[in-house]
């Protein structure tokens, strides 16, 4: 009886793991090796003749990539973003446009608390990890 129960549980577990894979990120790889991981659920990618616009309305993340620099994309559960900037909490933001992951702009001059932010410079976004 116990063996039968165990067998059922193994089958159920196999089915569950076979069907349920929830990825946290979609990572975009560019020709120069840059990787950008963006929150997967809610992501929209629009292609036109020259560029790819990636945005997530739920988190406020967005990025525009020239198609001739696009290499590939993959789902992952790790943030593979390269060139992520880090700083210690409590510092002030003076010059850049900084947004939280809800898309709310952090007013200039405000101290940043721990978390991940997006720095926008023109069409370029970079992640900022505040430790």
């Amino acid at each position, binding site marked *: 009886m116990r063996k039968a129960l165990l067998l059922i549980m193994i089958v159920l577990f196999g089915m569950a793991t076979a069907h349920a894979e929830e990825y946290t990120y979609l990572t975009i790889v560019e020709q120069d090796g840059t990787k950008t991981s963006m929150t997967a*659920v809610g*992501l929209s990618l*629009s*292609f036109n003749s020259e560029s790819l616009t990636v945005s997530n309305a*739920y*988190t406020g993340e967005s990025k525009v990539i020239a198609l001739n620099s696009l*290499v590939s994309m993959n789902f992952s559960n790790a943030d593979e973003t390269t060139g992520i900037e880090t700083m210690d909490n409590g510092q002030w933001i003076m010059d850049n446009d900084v947004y939280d992951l809800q898309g709310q702009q952090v007013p200039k001059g405000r101290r940043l608390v721990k978390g991940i932010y997006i720095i926008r410079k023109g069409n370029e976004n970079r992640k900022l990890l505040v430790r």
Partner: protein
Amino acid sequence: MKKRKLTLLSAIAMAFTMMAQTITVTQADGTVTQINASDAGNMIWTETDGTLNIGGQAYKVAQLDVDTENANIATGSVAGTTDAAKRLYRYFRNNYGKRIISSVMADVAWNHSLAEKIKKNITGKWPAMNCYDFIHICVPDGNGWIDYSDITPVTEWVDKGGIVQLMWHFNVPLSETTTIETNGSGVTCSPDKTTFKASNALVDGTWENRYFYAQMDRVIAVILKLQEAGIAATWRPFHEAAGNATAKQQANWTKAWFWWGYDGAETYKKLWITMFDYFKQKGVNNLIWIWTTQNYNGNSANYNQDTDWYPGDAYCDMIARDLYGYNAAQNAQEFSEIQAAYPNKMVVLGECGWDSSNKTGKPQGDIVECWNAGAKWGHFMVWYDGNAGNKSNTMVSDAWWTSAMKKENTGIVINRGLVKY
């Protein structure tokens, strides 16, 4: 040992409820394909021919969307084709089964004053959605107390990030010769107080038919104004249609309590579809349609389900149930039954509150307890009560709101500050 078995079984159950993601690929020629994210592999871009290889297949991609799988739930709205409606439907769908959207009724009709009470008097948080009612749309213009053509009560809610729900207690005159007064008197929704016949509303040349279309035109004018302002809404007309008609023991009182259900299921479905088609014909494309199933407060022991009253998958996006005085286990049972009956639709708690016959009696179960018991409603909506004697003037206690909106529950309950779509 028993505990360990239970833990393992819970882990398996959780694994089953984990949701994978789906990629919706729209190609340049309009072809739409859905692919499981887990099957996508490394998606390689080929610049020379402008294709993206997904799971071994090359696509000329125009648009690619990543969403929670929710395998059974329709990926698109039946009539919500504006950008705002698509985004709103997608937001509901992506949260479905993960978190519940909080909401509250207006103080009767065209305001968000109860939401404000909940925020300012109790919780410090706004409910995510506010429900407005066209119950007074029939009152002649220039009445001095309500003006639906002024959409400020809605735009100011949306401007702060809130979601909009619209519903309609569709009032009709007491008779063909009744004059609707500027104070709103002379109308009713109750079939026993009017000579208005639902079946006649579908017959050209009748006064009921003229009134039916004239009132729809008044509502459409407001909704189009919202649409032009870029606002989408969930839309819950003709609710609780079956009333008591599905009672297992039939008696002289086992009838519909709203006129739109009084002439039976067939007439009711025609009314729904007529409204649906007319709204589309008039260019209304910003609504997520919600049909409210009714078996009298979820009492399945004494009432049959009203599946015969369902207008059909092509005419609604969500299924609501109105429950009063139901605890967590009962909420879970109702949710499960409805989801099983309508597996490809999102199921929502259309109205809730304490048992209206005795407000100190059975309360609505704590919403997080309901959720944890298995009632994964897409949203809840608490009804108003001006005589409630509490700080919110709604049909739940202040403690209920405090629990629902507290910080620890933001992983389950979405408040307005968390809404983003």
